[in-house]
């Protein structure tokens, strides 16, 4: 329903752009000289690792100077900006504008009435509540999973690593059926979660699993092990080392992964449609409410709640950017 989630569905990997690149080991060198020519170069530097945590091959073409194709060089100028603007407008901005116009079809009062209808408010509340729980659980467990995958060696690690992406590969409705067969009525393990909020939580945890893991993993691979060892040799306990050394490094990545998981969760439809039960005021999430309003021929209500959902997603992503750019600045200052 929101452009943010749609954008996520396009590619299996969360955009890492929201999180600053991890502080490079050499950036913390005592002399404080940045080998790559300062801040400006940082975002342009190709990441050293793929999000899956494997060392990347040098990207083809970017290192080789291009001599042919004047057009390509011109792309960097106004033409490039023009294309980007046009693309964003056609794909994202214009449809959003059209939706907003539809939501205000009967003026501000009509919009307000549609959004504050008790069933609409309840669905928004359920959505935000469940998504927040899911995001928090992801922040903790996702970091743990990333830690284990990077720092521990065990048999079948590669398999586990591949399984992490499975929720992205599965159509979400399939996730719903999978969960229903395990947690539905006549559950083989005796846990019946269908038509409860816990059912929603489980379904959303399933589809948002990769976000935090895949954001934290590359940062963890990059993180300098020696700093931790130094801290330990200076007498820091494991907990202190984690809190003072590891966590600050991982924080932006965790935050970005958590935010994306939250944004994805509030727009999720397929995975909750069967296990959620769609009970108004209890387990009906906003996307289901929107769908229902369309089916009963009330497009205005659907558009209004969509706009509300959109606003929530937008504010989340905006906050995320503000916080992560602030923490990036702090990192740089500290360095």
């Amino acid at each position, binding site marked *: 329903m929101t452009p943010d989630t749609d954008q996520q569905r396009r590619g299996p990997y969360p955009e890492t752009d929201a999180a600053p690149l991890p502080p490079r080991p050499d950036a913390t060198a005592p002399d404080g000289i940045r080998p790559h020519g300062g801040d400006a170069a940082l975002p342009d530097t190709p990441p050293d690792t793929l999000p899956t945590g*494997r060392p990347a091959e040098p990207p083809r073409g970017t290192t080789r100077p291009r001599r042919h194709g004047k057009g390509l060089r011109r792309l960097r100028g106004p033409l490039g900006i023009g294309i980007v603007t046009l693309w964003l407008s056609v794909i994202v901005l214009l449809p959003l504008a059209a939706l907003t116009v539809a939501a205000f079809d009967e003026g501000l009062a009509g919009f307000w009435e549609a959004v504050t209808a008790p069933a609409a408010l309840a669905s928004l509340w359920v959505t935000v509540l469940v998504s927040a729980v899911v995001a928090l659980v992801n922040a903790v467990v996702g970091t743990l999973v990333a830690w284990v995958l990077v720092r521990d060696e065990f048999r079948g690690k*590669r*398999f586990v690593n*591949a399984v992490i992406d*499975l929720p992205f590969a599965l159509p979400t409705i399939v996730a719903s*059926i999978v969960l229903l067969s395990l947690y539905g009525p006549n559950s083989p393990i005796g846990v019946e979660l269908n038509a409860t909020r816990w059912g929603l939580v489980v379904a959303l945890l399933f589809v948002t699993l990769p976000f935090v893991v895949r954001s934290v993993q590359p940062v963890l691979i990059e993180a300098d092990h020696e700093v931790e060892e130094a801290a330990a040799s200076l007498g820091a306990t494991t907990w202190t080392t984690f809190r003072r050394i590891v966590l600050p490094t991982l924080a932006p990545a965790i935050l970005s992964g958590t935010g994306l998981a939250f944004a994805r969760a509030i727009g999720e439809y397929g995975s909750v449609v069967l296990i959620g039960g*769609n009970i108004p005021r209890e387990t009906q999430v906003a996307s289901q409410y929107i769908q229902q309003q369309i*089916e009963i021929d009330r497009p205005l209500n659907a558009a209004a709640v969509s706009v509300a959902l959109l606003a929530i997603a937008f504010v989340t992503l905006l906050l995320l950017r503000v916080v992560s750019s602030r923490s990036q600045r702090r990192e740089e200052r500290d360095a």
Partner: protein
Amino acid sequence: MRRPSIAIAAIAVTATLGLTACAGGGASDSAAAAGTAAADGATTSTINLYAYAVPKVGFDVVIPAFQKTKAGQGVQFQQSYGASGDQSRKVAAGAEADFVNFSVEPDITRLVDAGLVDPNWNANEHKGIPFGSVVTIVVRKGNPKGIKDWDDLLKPGLEVVTPNPFSSGSAKWNLLAPYAAKSNGGVDKAAGLAYVSALVKDHVKVQPKSGREATETFLQGSGDVLLSYENEALFIEKNGDPVEHVTPPTTFKIENPAAVLKGSKNLATATAFNDYLYTPEAQKLLAEAGFRPVDPTVAQEYTSKFPAPTKLWTIADLGGWKTVDSTLFKKDVGDIAKIYDQATQ
């Protein structure tokens, strides 16, 4: 490069396994499966069929039989099933349909008003209704709550599953049945509305969009009682689900209309198919599938399968669909619409 390919292969294999394992469990209202393959060499034409959610079981037997007739040779079917009102609005909005079958007449009237269906669509001897049913009460196996009649549904704490009347035709029939029973066929309107109000406010918690979805919700464990078509009840009982149905002594006659779109590219075949539904052969197949036949001779043969309730109200008793829809179901105006909106907002 070996490692990535192994990982990707692992993902692909697991995903495929997951998909195949789940392929059988898909719950779908709009199965767009085409009919059987055309006979070689025969001229092919495709009928786009838009229907309400539950008659799929009927068309699943009638379509192959039609394809064996002379008129139906080589005719393909593209079928779409869903909530009656929703389907009707889709066709009105431009979905390409040749033949439509809805739960309630107003959904066809919408297409007449839109200029898509001939105003004389219901001119035949059965008034455009090829089959019907009655409203029935589906309960869990053994009837643990002891449901026998409409009043039993108002027992404290009892949860009733019935779809949303703004999208579903089934929902309209389900609410009309107790309304007619309590209001003595619309005479005591207040009594009828009082019952509907008590039912919707205190006992209806979920709002599935169609009769089919209501059934799925009920079978997944929600609610104590499901209001539905008799044919749907017979269908799920036949499937072996742990339910049974109780037809109250006073209930409502369901009449499901069908029509051909006048702008259809396959007008001749679509009309032939529509006519075929009224033949004794098709009527028998429909009866076998659980739908009450309209052909009197065929109906006579199936009296034991379809027992006549003590009192069966009809839409004509309430003044016809035009009156019923505008006074009871019209959005923001109709009495039942207002009750439902108030209870669910």
